[in-house]
């Protein structure tokens, strides 16, 4: 809040990536000047909403506005993040802000990318609990310690910021599962209630699915929820190596 107030910036230069494949025009950057309320540290999404009032044709996804639904992943001044919880004070360079779609995925329109590849990789890891045992009448018991193993894994909001910041995913979006899907894979491998650990590891045991991760850690630096996919991937790698020995 104070960063903005002290600089008393009242007008922001917003540059937005625009592209509508139906229009026959090439992608271009649209520049807009936006007046913001003085002394308030608004979020990037607020700024976008103001831009949309000037030009209703600007397209982006948004829903919860509080960093939980994962709709508004975008590239903000070069770094992936969620528009709704990224304050201008953090994102601004001078009084300029450049918004582009998440990199590496096909663009549908403006800031909206086609998440199909991302979701397909998620589906591949069988993102649901597998437990073939007879179910108790009540809950399947889980100790506090067993449950704690899911912390840092189940909170993923599928915004795509991590996988689209990952060079390995850019190169092999069909064969490398990417940090988001692997975080989920580890979430189910780590669940004491899941009985399919071996099958899950079998499925990951090839040169690409997991091992194309080279520990670049872009995923960690951009995750808006502060999660650590690299750590989860390393845990999977360790389990695979241990099994092979």
């Amino acid at each position, binding site marked *: *809040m104070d960063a903005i107030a002290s600089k008393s910036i009242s007008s922001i230069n917003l540059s937005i990536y625009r592209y*509508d*494949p*139906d*229009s026959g025009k090439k992608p271009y950057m649209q520049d807009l000047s936006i007046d913001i309320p003085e002394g308030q*540290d608004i979020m990037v999404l607020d700024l976008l909403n103001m831009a*949309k*009032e000037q030009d*209703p*044709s600007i*397209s*982006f*996804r*948004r*829903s*919860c*506005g*509080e*960093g*939980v*639904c*994962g*709709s508004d992943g975008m590239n903000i001044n070069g770094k992936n993040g969620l528009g709704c*919880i990224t*304050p201008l004070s953090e994102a601004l360079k001078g009084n300029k802000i450049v918004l582009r779609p998440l990199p590496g995925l096909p663009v*549908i*329109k*403006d800031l*909206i990318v086609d*998440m199909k590849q991302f*979701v397909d990789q998620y*589906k591949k890891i*069988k*993102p*649901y*609990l597998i*437990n073939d045992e007879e*179910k108790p*009448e*009540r*809950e*399947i*018991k*889980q*100790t*506090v310690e*067993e*449950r704690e193993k*899911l912390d840092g894994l*189940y*909170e993923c*909001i*599928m915004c795509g910021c991590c996988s689209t910041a990952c060079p390995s995913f850019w190169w092999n979006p069909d064969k490398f599962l990417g940090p988001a899907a692997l975080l989920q894979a580890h979430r*189910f491998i780590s*669940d004491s*209630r*899941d009985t399919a650990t071996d099958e899950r590891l079998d499925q990951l045991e090839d040169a690409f699915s997991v091992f194309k991760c080279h520990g670049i850690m872009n995923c960690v630096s951009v995750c808006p929820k502060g999660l650590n996919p690299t750590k989860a991937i390393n845990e999977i790698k360790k389990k695979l190596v241990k099994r092979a020995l």
Partner: protein
Amino acid sequence: MAMNGKGEELDASKLKVLEFDGIVVGGGGSGLMASLQLAQSGFKTAVVSKVFPTRSHTVSAQGGITCAIQSADPDDDWRWHMYDTVKGSDFIGDQDSIEYMCQEGPKAVFELEHMGLPFSRTEEGKIYQRAFGGQSKDYGKGGQAERTCAAADRTGHALLHTLYQANLKAGTNFLSEWFAVDLVKNGDNQVVGVIAFEIETGEPYFLKSKATVLATGGAGRIYQTTSNAMINTGDGTGMVLRAGFPVQDMEMWQFHPTGIYGHGTLVTEGCRGEGGYLVNKDGERFMERYAPNYKDLASRDVVARSMMLEILEGRGCGPDADHVYLKLDHLGPEIVHKRLPGITELSKTFAHVDPVEHPIPVVPTCHYAMGGIPTNVHGQVLTQATDGTDNVVHGLYAAGEAACVSVHGGNRLGGNSLLDLIVFGRSAGLHIENALKDGITLSKATNDDIDQALVNLNRVNISSTGEDVANVKSELQKNMQLNFGVFRTGDLMEKGLVELENIREKTQNIHLTDKSSRFNTARVEALELLNLIEVAQATAVCANERKESRGAHARDDFQERDDDNWLKHSIYFADTKEVTKRDVNFRPKTVQAFQPIVRSY
């Protein structure tokens, strides 16, 4: 043929047609519960959602699912939960529905756990339950209960993702990022499906179905300040009203006590369940005055009004004395970080405050619609005949916040919304499943019926001049905030109603400037505005008509509850803009009905 800027009108002959056994409009908790039930039974099921399902607003639910699973207290009883819920509803919740929800709840919660929902755990490895507002043991006589099952303070997220995952496993078809515009209804008042378009391409469809479930969630965006997501625009409610069916108890809007000041984002009631409390500018724990027994865990309507009174009487905090503080710093970092990690994040982001060290500035924020599309316990939508009898609308179901099966009546208890979603999403799914097994057939619709459902879409698509969507929406929201907020009074509401008529005129004349086909969010927002005005007007008319104070509906000019005249549901039709009454159900099947008493906490 995708919709485009050439000003062509759509008619039945230009639509692609897809056919399903069941379609569910909305991909939140209740929708995904209904679709799961159908898909697991092998029926051709589609979820039509304007956002990718995990973006739905269920994801934002924090505190938990209230349900007597006897984990925190082995002697807990669903009947005590039922008593609390009836009392919380200020006695206009339907007791057959509340009975069904509280009794069926444990089964549904354990089902979710078996699906993988990562509930927090007790030392014995059972599901963790925390205290929430309005919860008691032994029919109000045994003190505070701990009945809300939680996954830290991210229960909705955990629930929605678990349900999405279970639907993937079951093979549900997802029409993700499709916008449902209007119901297709035939001459016999049967619902035959919906008109929808794929947002990515702008391609319009007639989605034909033997059963249509409206699970479109809330409409908090009729207010300026709300905890609701931007997508909560009452789309199902708008569709139902335009199709000539009624809505129920629309005056009943819950204002959640603890919205973050200046933003509206919520911090869970679980904060107070974990021992947090509210203070005014003098540092006084003022809820001790208003609710000596339950204090900060009185029900939400009571706490929200008490906060507003503190502010109105000059004891608010901050330079404008326009909010109060939620104190958590006395709980210590361990409780806050372990039990309320999401709150810590939100508080830092939106209030610039670390709750471990400083109190969070909060103010009541529009949160939840107790009213909605009237249904029975099977999710079947009801309409009212001129003689006052209930009739089932053939082919149409509703569940979740969009519906009013009336388990919440005049005020919802915390943690009961997630329970409502899963219990009644499931019961709608079960009923459709049985009906399909019994061989219900697809009703027929004529081209005229289909064209009728295209009227609004066509009007928006061919508009060449007129009102700006964002401006009209903002006018609507300001009007509702000002005239239909926490405290209401006849004079202001009359003024607000006149203003709403003007706003409706403008919505009939909106101009969609961008006519492109591909991912045209301006088109979506224009159509959402047409739903917002339906919800807003229903709310306003019913609020003015209910001349009493009950639950969340608090009138300065009628401060008492009036059981003689208003122990009733309100029913509103859009074509007449008139309110009729409907009896509250006092006939639970297995227990004695709870009779109205003075409600104190």
